[in-house]
């Protein structure tokens, strides 16, 4: 009974043996949650694997996975692993061109696609990359008349698999046995904040080791529930959904559609939740908008109890002493009247542990969730390290750090301030790029993260920015653009911000308004507007944004190292920054350099002392056509605060 459980296919068979009747996957289909048990999943995977084998998929072949989180897409991943192949999940919202790069880079011959939209993209790629021989689709809608060679439904693939399995039942088990833990389990593409995306090859051993550490760290067990809604191409989804579910045997819930995630969240009530800061931010923005629109009684109640929560909520969560009885009672009452119902509406009532990572989270945002009793913690990591480098243990959560290194992970700070990591969870290599691999992994086996950070006195790691983005103003003040941008983005009215200042005499910023928040703000004030650009040009909106910036400046003035990097001049952009135009990465991080180039007239105007700037920008519509939008943007001056005075006051 001690067969090694060191590859994902073996783990699957193990789960099917240990808990055959426990739910493994759920998906909401036609309004009803459908459940598959572990035994059923093992059976499905067997059919898919046999089908793929019959189609000529074998060891070393790569299977692209394109689509939203669907059980069959996850099963295709493991079916590929059974056959010794490598699944390569792709970002499903990438346009065909971006996808083509990855398909060629990973030399993909087989693909599983969710629906017609993805099939169309793959067929387009096939024109340039004929090696892509076979495409399987999950949802047949609209594909009835596609007669391309090598295109078939997963349903047909299963049928082929059934035939194939019938001929030799030992085939499947034999294939599972052949897999080695040192084999590559998956190739995950980095989002490409800088340059072209790189394929990160991770072995079974690395992923399984990391997932085991995680499962032990938070005591995850078969009774847990997770909603998988983040892109399958992202390492977090692979680790938290796919890897953990195979280790701990809990249930993975697939939302009905990307638009229903908030509903599904509420219906499933996950116990373990991971989301990048952006999602928490969106949830909070939604809550705030709805509260602003609520009746005065509810609004007053909300604000009163949120005040209580802000004062004592986090101490209560961390079981710290020193909370007066009256406040405890108030908090109880708040739980009954506000926090409880709020968590219920958001689908967060059953949450035991919630994580965020990928980007720094705004302190106020972080406090909000913790103060209403959600154990939100931060972690630090990247695709190359299987995410997990540092995590915050429960009870030792700090706002501005990402926690201690995880068991088995060594973290070292280079002289340049760069964070270096060595762990069993490190990637094997960048796919097909020995040069890049050598650059990232040094002779001692440390991975160079490219992030700048340091350890605080308690041994917690603090990340300030990307090492290459941290700069200095002309007067020598430290300039950490992301730090400033995050501060700005915490305001619900600001969707995106880009700060400039390295080597300059002052800090200036480009700001994107949040259409949902400002739209509703404008409606309440009876401000008429015709669309995004119009709204962004309104003087009232400018005043609002300027106030936000001045608040950030005041907070910065109290900081001794960053105090001089207050934002002096800014302008509100007339269009939203968009991933389709390369201004954001697919995970929606701003590409500062690209933006600086694209909007160079604006940046020059910010530094030249002009009061406004005329701009014409090319935009790409969703149907692929391009057009131009133009606007006369006003440059705003923000008040700054005296650093010394602020420190004296503090």
């Amino acid at each position, binding site marked *: 009974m001690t067969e090694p459980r060191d590859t994902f296919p073996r783990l699957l068979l193990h789960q099917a043996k240990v808990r055959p009747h426990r739910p493994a996957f759920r998906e909401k289909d036609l309004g009803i949650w459908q459940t598959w048990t572990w035994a059923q999943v093992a059976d499905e995977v067997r059919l898919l694997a046999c089908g793929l084998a019959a189609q000529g998929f074998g060891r070393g072949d790569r299977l692209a996975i394109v689509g939203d989180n669907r059980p069959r897409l996850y099963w295709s991943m493991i079916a590929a692993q059974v056959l010794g192949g490598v699944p390569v999940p792709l970002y499903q919202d990438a346009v065909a061109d971006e996808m083509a790069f990855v398909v060629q880079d990973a030399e993909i011959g087989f693909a599983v696609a969710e629906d017609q939209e993805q099939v169309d993209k793959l067929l387009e790629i096939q024109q340039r990359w004929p090696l892509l021989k076979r495409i399987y689709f999950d949802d047949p809608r609209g594909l*009835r008349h596609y007669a391309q060679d090598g295109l078939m439904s997963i349903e047909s693939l299963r049928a082929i698999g059934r035939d194939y399995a019938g001929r030799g039942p030992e085939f499947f088990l034999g294939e599972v046995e052949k897999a080695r833990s040192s084999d590559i389990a998956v190739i995950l593409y980095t989002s490409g904040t800088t340059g072209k995306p790189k394929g990160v090859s991770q072995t079974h051993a690395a992923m399984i080791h990391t997932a085991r550490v995680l499962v032990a760290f938070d005591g995850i067990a078969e009774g847990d529930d997770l909603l998988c809604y983040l892109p399958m191409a992202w390492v977090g989804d692979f680790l938290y959904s796919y890897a953990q579910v195979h280790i701990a045997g809990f249930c993975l819930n697939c939302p009905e559609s990307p638009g229903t995630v908030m509903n599904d969240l509420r219906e499933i009530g996950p116990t373990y939740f991971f989301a990048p800061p952006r999602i928490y931010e969106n949830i909070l923005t939604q809550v705030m908008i709805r509260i602003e629109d609520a009746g005065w009684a509810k609004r007053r109640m909300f604000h009163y109890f949120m005040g209580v929560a802000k004062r004592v909520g986090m101490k209560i969560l961390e079981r710290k002493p020193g909370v007066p009885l009256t406040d405890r009672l108030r908090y109880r009452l708040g739980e009954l009247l506000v926090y409880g119902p709020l968590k219920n509406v958001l689908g967060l009532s059953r949450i035991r542990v919630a994580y965020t990572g990928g980007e720094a989270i705004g302190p106020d945002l972080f406090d909000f969730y913790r103060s209403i009793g959600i154990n939100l913690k931060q972690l630090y990591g990247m695709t190359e390290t299987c995410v997990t480098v540092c995590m915050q243990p429960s009870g030792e959560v700090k706002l501005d750090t990402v926690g201690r290194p995880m068991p088995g992970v060594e973290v070292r700070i280079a002289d340049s301030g760069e964070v270096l990591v060595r762990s069993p969870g490190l990637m094997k290599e960048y796919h097909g790029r020995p040069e890049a691999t050598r650059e990232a992994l040094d002779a001692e086996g440390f991975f160079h993260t490219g992030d700048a950070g340091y350890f605080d006195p308690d041994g917690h790691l603090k990340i300030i920015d990307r090492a290459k983005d941290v700069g200095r103003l002309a007067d020598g003040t430290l300039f950490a653009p992301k730090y400033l941008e995050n501060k700005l983005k915490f305001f619900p009215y600001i969707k995106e911000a880009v700060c400039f200042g390295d080597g300059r005499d002052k800090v200036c910023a480009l700001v994107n308004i949040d259409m949902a928040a400002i739209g509703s703000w404008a409606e309440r004030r009876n401000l008429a507007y015709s669309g995004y650009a119009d709204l962004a040009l309104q003087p009232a909106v400018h005043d609002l944004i300027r106030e936000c910036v001045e608040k950030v400046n005041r907070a910065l003035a109290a900081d001794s190292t960053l105090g001089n990097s207050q934002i002096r001049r800014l302008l509100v952009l007339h269009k939203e920054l968009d991933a389709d135009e390369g201004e954001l990465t697919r995970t929606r991080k701003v590409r500062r350099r690209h933006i600086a180039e694209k909007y160079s007239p604006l940046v020059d105007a910010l530094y030249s002392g002009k009061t406004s700037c005329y701009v014409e920008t090319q935009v790409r519509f969703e149907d692929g056509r391009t057009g131009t939008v133009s606007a006369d943007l006003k440059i705003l001056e923000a008040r700054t605060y005296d650093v010394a005075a602020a420190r004296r006051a503090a």
Partner: protein
Amino acid sequence: MGAGRKIGGPILEVDDVSLAFGGVVALKSVSFDVRRREIRAIIGPNGAGKSSMLNVINGVYHPQRGSVTFKGARRHRVDPHEAAEQGIGRTFQNIALFRGMTVLDNIMTGRNLRMKCNFLQQALYWGAAQREELEHRAKVEAVIDFLEIQHIRKTPVGRLPYGLQKRVELARALAAEPELLLLDEPMAGMNLEEKQDMSRFILDVNDQFGTTIVLIEHDMSVVMDLSDRVVVLDYGRKIADGTPEEVRSNKDVIDAYLGVAH
């Protein structure tokens, strides 16, 4: 698109129909046919009689002269509910949904025709009534899935933007599983993206369910892309009938749309 679609014989024949309201002539001797599984467009300038034509087909108006033959049965007078029972569904130019009800409930009303249990059985929700409700719900969910409106299933219709309301209206019409679907300006007031979505849905409905579709539309590019054949009305008279290419090059049509110097 349409590689595997087989267009059959006529499902609907409009023969010499004339309709007048007092002295105002809405339709004058209009004849055309609609074949099974085709997408047939009716176009024309404002006040040409397009909506009147649809209203004649599904029995809202009764023409003074002429007849309508649906599935081989020639009829002179038919009421809207009879038309619906025979398999004619429709959507309206100005949305006609129950604004206070959820999307799901609105679409469920599309199944009313096919509910066999009486009011009392439904109220008790027992036995046959329960089975029936579940069956209908499954059908409705299939439509919701088809039109990709899962995210608004429980949202009151009044809170939805216009484009989505139009889609819900289409969903309700589809829930009745019509053989002939009349769409009155399904894309009026939509932006480009919404129009593209709606066009795709119309093609998919036609393709997947084999539903015959008659639609009125102003956007000429949409009409040209979607329809197999086009009828052009002007001042209540038919001035052209044929494929989009034929109609586009027809001199009368160009005159009617662009105007002629008299």
